[in-house]
C-alpha cells in the first residue's frame, strides 16, 4: 500500500496555504510533517482526510480498497476530541467503535490499552485534556484503518501516554499501516521521511 500526493495545493480563506506539494509514503512507513505555525500541517492532513477541498493536484492510495475513498480508510486524530461530555468514557468509545465498524470487545481492549479502563463509567466532561486525548487515541485502536492521520498526537499527553502512543504507532506500522503525523517535537518513533512545509524552495 502506498499513499502518494502529486502537486497538491490547498487554498483556504483566499490564500494559498501550500502549493506543489508531493510525497509518497509506503506501508510500514511514517511521514513526519513539520513546519512553523500556520505552515499548513493541519490543512495538509485535512486535505488528505477529504475534509478540505483539493485545490490542485491529487492524492492517491495505491493498494487500498478500490471501493472506498481515502477518507473512509483513514483515522483522523485532530485537535478536537469528538467526545460528548454528557456520555461516559465507555459510551463515547463504544459509540465510535460501533460507528466506525469495530467490535465492542475491541473497545474494551482499547480502553485498557490507553489506561482508562478504571474511568469507563465517568462522564467524559470530567476528563483532563490528556485523558481526553487518550480516549481519542483508543478510537484508533478499536476500529481498523490502514491510514492514520495524526495532528500533533503527542500534545497534552504525559510521558507514559507518549510512550504508549509510540508503541501503538510502531505496532500499526509493523502491521502494514502507514502514518502521516504533523508534529513540532519528537514523535516517539523514527519517521521514514520528513516533509518540511513553509520552507522557500
Amino acid at each position, binding site marked *: 500500500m502506498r499513499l502518494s500526493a502529486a502537486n497538491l495545493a490547498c487554498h*483556504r*480563506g483566499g490564500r494559498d496555504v501550500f502549493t506543489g506539494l508531493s510525497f509518497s509514503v509506503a506501508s510500514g512507513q511514517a511521514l513526519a510533517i513539520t513546519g512553523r505555525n500556520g505552515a499548513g500541517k493541519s490543512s495538509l492532513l*485535512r486535505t488528505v*482526510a*477529504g*475534509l*478540505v*477541498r483539493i485545490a490542485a493536484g491529487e492524492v492517491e492510495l495505491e493498494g487500498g480498497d478500490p471501493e*472506498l475513498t481515502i*477518507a*473512509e480508510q*483513514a483515522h*483522523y486524530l*485532530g*485537535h*478536537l*476530541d*469528538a*467526545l*460528548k461530555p*454528557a*456520555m461516559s468514557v465507555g*459510551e463515547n468509545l*463504544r*459509540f*465510535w467503535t*460501533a*460507528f*466506525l*465498524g469495530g467490535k465492542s470487545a475491541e473497545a474494551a481492549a482499547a480502553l485498557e490499552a490507553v489506561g482508562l479502563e478504571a474511568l469507563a463509567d465517568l462522564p467524559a466532561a470530567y476528563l483532563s485534556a490528556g485523558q481526553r486525548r487518550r480516549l481519542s487515541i483508543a478510537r484508533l485502536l478499536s476500529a481498523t484503518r490502514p491510514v492514520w492521520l495524526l495532528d500533533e498526537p503527542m500534545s497534552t499527553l504525559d510521558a507514559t501516554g507518549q510512550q504508549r502512543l509510540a508503541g501503538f504507532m510502531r505496532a500499526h506500522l509493523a502491521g502494514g499501516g502507514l502514518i502521516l503525523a504533523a508534529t513540532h517535537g519528537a514523535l516517539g518513533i523514527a519517521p521514514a521521511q520528513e516533509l518540511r512545509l513553509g520552507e522557500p524552495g
Partner: protein
Amino acid sequence: MSALAALLTRDMRIGVRVGGGALMGVLFFLVVVSLVPFAVGPDLALLKRIGPAILWLAALLASLLALDRLFAADHEDGSLDLLLMSRTPLELVVAAKGLAHWLTTGLPLIIAAPLIGLMLNLDPPAEAALVLTLLAGTPALTFIGLIGAAISVALRRGGLLLAVLVLPLTVPVLIFGVAAANAAMSGPAPFGTPFTILCALTLASLVIGPFAAAAALRQEME
C-alpha cells in the same frame, strides 16, 4: 446498519440528558400553549376555534428549539469531521440524526398535546384528529429543519438564521396541518384531503431533507 443504530442511540442519549434540550422542547410547548388562554381570555368558543392553530404553531416553534445544535454541536467538538469521513453515506447519517431529533423532541410534543388540548377546550374527537395531524406533520418540520441546521452549522448563534431560513419553508405543513385538524372538528371540508397532502409533504421532506442537508454539510467543508 449498526453504525446508524449507534448514531441514533447516541443522539437520543445526549438529547435526554442534562443540557440535551430535548425535554426543553416539550416544556416550551406546554408553556406557550398554556399562555394562550391567559392572553385570549376565558372565551371557550374562541379557544376551541383557534386551538388547533395554537397547538400547531407551538409545535413548530418547539421543534425549532433544539434544531440549531443538531449539527453545530458535532461541528464544534470535531465529531462532524469523523461523520463526514465515515463509510456510512452522509445522507443516511443525516437522516439518522433527524430521526433521533424527532424521537426526542417531536414525539414528546405529540404525547403532551392531548393533555394541553384540554386547556383550549378541545373535545376528544378533535384531540384525536389533532394528534394524528401532529404525528403526520412534525417529521416534516424536523426534516425541513435539517436543511437549515446544516446550512447554519458553522455560524455562532446560528439559531436565528435557522429560524429565518426554516420557518417560511414550513408554511405548507402548517396550512395543511391546521386545515386537517379544523376539518375534523367543524367541517365542512373532509378531513382526508388536507391530511393526505400533509402526509405527502412529510414524505417529500423525508426524501429531500437528508439529501439537501448532506449537500450543505459537504459544502461547509471549505
